[in-house]
C-alpha cells in the first residue's frame, strides 16, 4: 500500500493529513536518558540473570551484559526504579546520578 501524506502548506507551515508522519526511527535517535535523576546500579555478583527486570522495564532499557547479567541502557533509562522493585534478589539499587 502506498501512503499519501497529503502534504500541504497552511499559513506557511507544512502539514500532513491528520498529522501523519513517515516513521524514520526518530525514537531511537532521540536520547531520553537525560530525564533521569536516579540510576539503577546492579550488583552483578548478586544478579542471577533471571531477566525479570528486563520483562518489567517499561522503556525497554534493560539489556544483557557480556557476563550474562543485566544492566541499564544509559541513553533511554528514565530511572523509574521498577527494575529495583521487582528484582527478586534485590541486587539493583537506585542511586542519585551526579551530572
Amino acid at each position: 500500500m502506498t501512503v499519501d501524506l497529503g502534504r500541504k502548506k497552511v499559513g506557511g507551515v507544512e502539514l500532513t493529513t491528520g498529522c501523519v508522519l513517515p516513521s524514520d526511527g526518530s525514537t531511537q535517535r532521540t536520547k531520553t536518558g537525560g530525564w533521569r535523576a536516579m540510576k539503577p546500579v546492579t550488583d552483578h555478583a548478586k544478579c542471577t540473570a533471571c531477566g525479570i527486570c528486563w520483562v518489567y522495564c517499561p522503556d525497554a532499557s534493560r539489556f544483557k551484559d557480556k557476563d550474562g547479567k543485566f544492566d541499564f541502557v544509559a541513553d533511554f533509562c528514565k530511572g523509574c526504579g521498577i527494575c529495583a522493585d521487582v528484582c527478586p534478589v534485590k541486587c539493583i539499587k537506585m542511586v542519585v546520578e551526579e551530572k
Partner: protein
Amino acid sequence: MKEVMEASHAVAEAVKAIEPDVIAAYPITPQTHIVERLSDFVADGEIKSEYIRVESEFAAISACLGASATGVRSYTSTSSQGLALMHEVLYITSGMRLPVCMSEVNRSLSAPINIWNDHQDSISERDTGWIQLYVETAQEAYDMTVMQFKISEDKRVLLPSMVCMDGFTLSHVYEPVDILSKEQVNSFLPKYKPVHAILDPKEPLTQGPIGFPTHYMEFRKELCDVIDNSLNVIGEVMADYSKKFPVTIKDSRPERYFHTEEYMMADADVVLVAMGSVCGTIKEVIDQLRAKGVKAGLFKIITYRPFPKEIIKKKLAGYKKVAIIEKALSPGFGGPLYGEIATALYDASSRPQLRNFIVGLGGRDVKLEHIEKIINMTLKGEGKLEEWMF
C-alpha cells in the same frame, strides 16, 4: 425490499450490507437494538466483521479509532452518557482524520437520570469536528447510514461522522422501510481505500504525534477548512443517492436529499425550524392548520455539522416570522440551534423575527397541541423570546 421494521433494525441492516471490518460498541439504551442485532449477524456468520466486546464506550470509540488508524472501516453506535464518555476520543478521531462512522441514538443526559429522548447528548458534541446528520424517519436513518460512510471516507473529507436519530420516538418505532440489496449498497459505496492512515510494516508511520505551538493552530485551521468543504461532498453524495435510489415509500424521506428540507414554505407566514423526528409531528400540524387557512411551513435541518450557514441565510431571509423548535439546551444561554440560526441570519438583508421554543426534553411528549400553540404564539408575537413547552 420493503419491510416494516424498527429504525434501529433498519440501521443494523444498513451496517450489515456495508460490513465494516471492525464493529466495537457497548450497549446503552436506547441504542441497544442496533448493536444487539449486529452482534447476532456476526455470531451467525452473516457478516465477517470483527466484533469487539468492550468494557465501556471510551473503549469502544478507542477501538474504532485504533482500527481505523490501521486502514480499515470501523463502526460504533451509542447514546447519551455513552457519547459523553467518548468525548475525549471524538476530538482525537477527527484530528487524526479517521473516517469512523457512528449511529448516535439521541437520549438526554443525567442528572436526573433519564433514558428518554432529546438532543442534548449530540449537540454537546457539535464542536468535536465530527460531521452530524439528523434524521426524521426510519428510511432516512437507513439511507443516511449508507451515505455517511461514503461521505466520511471521501478523500476530500476523511472525517468521522455521526447520524443522529431520536431514541424511542424513532429508534423503537416500526415504519415501512425500503432496504437495498447488498449489491446495490456495494455499487454505491466502494470498498474503503485508506489514504493516509495505514498499518504497513514496509512503510511505517507515526500517527497522533505531538503538535507544538508552531504547528497546532494550523492543524486546527485545516480541520475547520476540511469540515467546511465537506458541505459540498455531503451535497454530492445526497444528490447521487437520491438519483440512484428514488423514493419507493410515500413520505418516507425527501425526494431529493439535501442539507435542509422545505415543507410548505413557499407561501408561509410562519416557518418552524427543527431537526429529527419531531418534524413528522410538525408536518402533521401544518397539514391540519393549512386546512383552516393558517399558512405555516417547516424548514428541516439535516446537516447540522458542517452548519449550512449560507443555505439557511438564503432560505430563511425572506420570511417575517420564524420559530426554532429544539430538544437541546445550553444552560446560561438558551437553545443552541436558535443561537446558530440567529448568527446565520445576522447579516441577511432582511432578518425574520425569531422565536425559540424548547420542547421534548427527557422524553416529554411533543404533542400536536404544542406545535399548534407555537405557531399561534409566533404569528401573534405572544410570550417571551424563549419559551418552554411543558
